[in-house]
């Protein structure tokens, strides 16, 4: 098949196109701040063992063999104080980055992947394939997400992966709808039709023409999904359905709430996990906003 | 030239746009008159400043644009010197506007009647009944059945919508209507209908019209007077008949060649003018048309010709104005306009 017939303007190598497809938003100061925050959290997660002064689940004792419980920030060398059970809060925050980023990134990949595949398939092939897939999306829209995760928690072992599974089952819906309409727009542009007429296989057309145009969108929705995943995981842990073995920020908040931290004004206990969540999720928002401005540049924004 | 017969006299008007750090002069010392009861065509290609000029008369221009000089004397008052409040009082009552695309210019969520009432009652002070009577009268004038007053803009066809726009413009009996490419978006047959309608209404009511268009055949068909603009400057103006029979500026000569005649008369070869207008970010020193002009001399490239008035109000900005008859003879030849000539 002659290359010149099927292709759109200048086509650099596959890798270059992939990376240009991602198009990191480096011109927006907020987006850069977001990337820096992500980098900091990522490094913290990787080097948690080195950074954290204590094991997050370890119950600590003071020098006089008393339980090192309810210590205020700064007392006895605990930067953020300790919980009612004598665990170091700062260490818990450090280790919390792990489950947050793990859940966040896995869920984001699942949502983006499933949503993109469904959207591209529906948009490209049309017909009954599209109808079936879009009806599935409708049904997914009818399932309230958090309640669904809770119901799943009734049957599955408590684990941070419950959130990922639930998101994979339900939250691909937004991405799918948007990607599908994107693909429909692409189909209206001449070169896809030209490629079909010239005999290119569907798979090839999708890979070469549709995917590069659709990938930025997938990344956008993926980056938004990271925030959703972290918030959801926090909510699930807070409600008591999380994995008690892994110290997540949501678990810390549940612990604080259950131990009457509110009435005892123990701000050092429940404020830090919340702030950590806000930082990571905001970072995600800033990065996705930076993306949006690149994908859909609007003047005077 | 400001006589009793002149409704609007524009003198040395300047409009600047702020683009990033630089300033672009979209309209550079424009001068022309609009006589009472006449249709004046403002013609030129895209980007020549005609739309900016026309909008400047209403003083509703882009946020980043300013009127930086000149005067616009309307019925004895300089519009440039008025406060926003004073200007607002004139709007629609004395100076109305017909947009290029009525679809985008009518609010989609209100009925046509509502939008008429906005001006009839809101600005005209009419009672509800009087407004109703006037609305029906206006619709009859433009040829739409009054029953359609309750319809929404999207329910009208393109040509009908333009008629609605005309009815709106006429609502408060203005002295001047500015029509921005009023028929460009319509097909040729409808174009003629709308232009005919506009002309008969204008004559009946004695309104002056400034019609912005890029199509010289529309000008030939409808306008009594013509103002030709190029790259922000007025290059020629005068009675349409004079301009088209005996154009003096080479650009006008080129325009004549480039368009099919609306009346469908015998046609020679269509001769486009090669090249493009200069960027207004850095306008050239001399005459702005020099790079495309088949008759340009050395002087043309270094000295910008001033707009000089001749007999019968026929004004031209060209160094070689005196040689016009000879140049005209050359201009009708196809070869004159080829790049290498």
């Amino acid at each position: 098949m002659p290359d010149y017939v099927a292709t759109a303007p200048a086509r650099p190598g596959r890798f270059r196109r992939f990376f240009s497809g991602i198009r990191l938003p480096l011109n927006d100061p907020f987006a850069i701040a977001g990337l820096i925050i992500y980098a900091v959290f990522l490094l913290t997660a990787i080097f948690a063992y080195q950074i954290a002064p204590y094991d997050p689940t370890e119950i600590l004792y003071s020098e006089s063999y008393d339980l090192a419980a309810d210590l205020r920030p700064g007392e006895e060398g605990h930067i953020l104080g300790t919980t009612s059970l004598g665990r170091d809060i700062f260490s818990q925050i450090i280790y919390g980055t792990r489950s947050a980023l793990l859940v966040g990134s896995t869920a984001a990949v699942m949502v983006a992947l499933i949503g993109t595949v469904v959207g591209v398939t529906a948009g490209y092939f049309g017909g009954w394939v599209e109808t079936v897939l879009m009806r599935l999306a409708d049904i997914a829209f009818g399932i309230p997400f958090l309640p669904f995760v809770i119901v799943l928690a009734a049957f599955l072992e408590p684990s941070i992966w419950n959130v990922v599974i639930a998101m994979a089952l339900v939250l691909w819906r937004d991405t799918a709808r948007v990607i599908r309409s994107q693909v429909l727009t692409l189909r209206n542009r001449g070169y896809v039709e030209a490629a079909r007429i010239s005999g290119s296989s569907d798979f090839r057309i999708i890979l070469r023409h549709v995917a590069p145009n659709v990938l930025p969108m997938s990344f956008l929705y993926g980056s938004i999904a990271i925030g959703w995943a972290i918030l959801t995981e926090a909510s699930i842990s807070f409600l008591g359905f999380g994995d008690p073995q892994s110290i997540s920020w949501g678990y810390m908040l549940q612990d604080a709430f259950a131990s009457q931290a509110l009435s005892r004004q123990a701000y050092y206990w429940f404020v830090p996990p919340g702030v950590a969540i806000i930082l990571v999720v905001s970072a995600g928002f800033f990065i996705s906003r930076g993306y949006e401005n690149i994908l859909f540049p609007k003047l005077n924004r | 030239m400001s006589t009793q017969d002149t409704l609007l006299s524009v003198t040395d008007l300047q409009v600047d746009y702020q683009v990033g750090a630089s300033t672009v002069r979209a309209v550079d010392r424009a001068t022309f008159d609009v006589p009472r009861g006449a249709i004046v065509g403002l013609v030129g290609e895209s980007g020549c400043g005609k739309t900016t000029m026309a909008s400047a008369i209403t003083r509703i221009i882009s946020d980043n644009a300013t009127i930086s000089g000149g005067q616009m004397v309307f019925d004895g008052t300089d519009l440039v010197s008025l406060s926003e409040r004073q200007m607002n009082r004139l709007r629609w009552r004395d100076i109305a506007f017909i947009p290029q695309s009525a679809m985008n210019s009518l609010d989609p969520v209100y009925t046509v009647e509502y939008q008429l009432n906005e001006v009839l009652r809101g600005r005209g002070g009419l009672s509800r009944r009087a407004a109703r009577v006037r609305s029906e009268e206006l619709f009859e004038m433009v040829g739409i059945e009054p029953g359609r007053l309750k319809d929404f803009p999207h329910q009208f066809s393109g040509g009908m919508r333009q008629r609605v726009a005309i009815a709106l413009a006429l609502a408060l009996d203005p002295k001047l209507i500015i029509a921005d490419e009023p028929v460009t978006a319509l097909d040729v047959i409808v174009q003629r209908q709308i232009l005919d309608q506009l002309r008969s209404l204008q004559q009946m009511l004695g309104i002056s019209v400034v019609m912005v268009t890029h199509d010289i055949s529309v000008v030939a068909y409808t306008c009594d007077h013509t103002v030709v603009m190029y790259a922000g400057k007025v290059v020629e103006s005068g009675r349409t008949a004079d301009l088209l029979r005996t154009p003096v500026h080479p650009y006008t000569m080129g325009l004549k060649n480039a368009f099919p005649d609306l009346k469908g008369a015998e046609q020679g070869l269509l001769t486009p003018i090669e090249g493009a207008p200069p960027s207004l970010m850095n306008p050239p020193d001399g005459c702005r048309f020099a790079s495309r002009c088949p008759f340009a001399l050395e002087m043309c490239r270094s000295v910008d010709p001033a707009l000089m008035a001749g007999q019968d109000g026929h004004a031209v900005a060209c160094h070689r104005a005196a040689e016009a008859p000879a140049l005209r003879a050359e201009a009708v030849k196809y070869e004159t306009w080829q790049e290498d000539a």
Partner: protein
Amino acid sequence: MTQAKAIISRLLQLLLVLWAVVTILFLLFRLMPGNPMAAYIDPTFTAEQQEALMAQFGLDKPLWSQYFTYLGNLLQGEMGYSFRYRTPVSERIWALLPNTLILTFSSLIVAYIFGILAGAWLAWRRGSSVEKISLTAVLTTRAMPEFWLGMVLLAVFSFWLGWFPAGGTRSPGVEYSGFWGFYTSADFLAHLALPAATLAIYSQGLPLLLMRSNMLDVMKEDFVTMARVKGLSKWTVVVKHAARNALLPVMTSFAISVGYQLQGNVVVESVFSWPGLGRELVLAVSASDYPLAQGAFLMIAVVVILMNLVADLLYAFLDPRISHA
């Protein structure tokens, strides 16, 4: 009339989604616990109760037959008996529904009124430093876990300042005169304040950003310029023309937001011990009270699905380009 056709197709879609969700629920609760009967029968029920439930839900029959019995029962509002409360599930659900709806709608209305006004105002103030700060603040509210916000508000306004009660819907010992008396009492409103504020703060970001974005777009439209050329007052131009058009998508997003708000309800109700469907779902799942969990989930899903439909219809109704095609 294509409009009737559109409405009918939309209703059919609603039915499809409802049916699918109900079916998913059925399969989930029958297959997951391992014992299909566990969906309705708790070992601590008396023998007569167990027999009655077996008969009502056909639990001794094959799965497909149970399915139709289940559907039939649902249509009649029969959802079994709660293991914990020993009362019919439907009774409990209907009693809790008003609490959840009031919390959801009151907070959402406040959020939208604020968001619309603030969004329009921010569009006005485009490019200023106020805008940058405000937008960052708004994005931050969307980044915080609702329950955490609730915790902070509780700690500050209830435990520290003592201005509001710490949870629930009623204070002990206070008298009410019937259903409406209760819901309009000052005591109830005092209890509603903090949870509603929590949800409102979290939710206002969407209408705010949407309204701002729409206003910025609409202000560039030709008909807005036209309104100015007509010499209309600034108020008329900005409110009657620009805002009216910008508001359209925001109104439809309200309906969809109800669905999302309901999910937020789950955690906020838990923080404030608000007796609503969300909190009940959590308690039921924790206690393995399957019938109640099913019922609560179903009710939430029904409201979400209904509001999605309302959103679609609302758009068609409000936009003359669709309603008067």
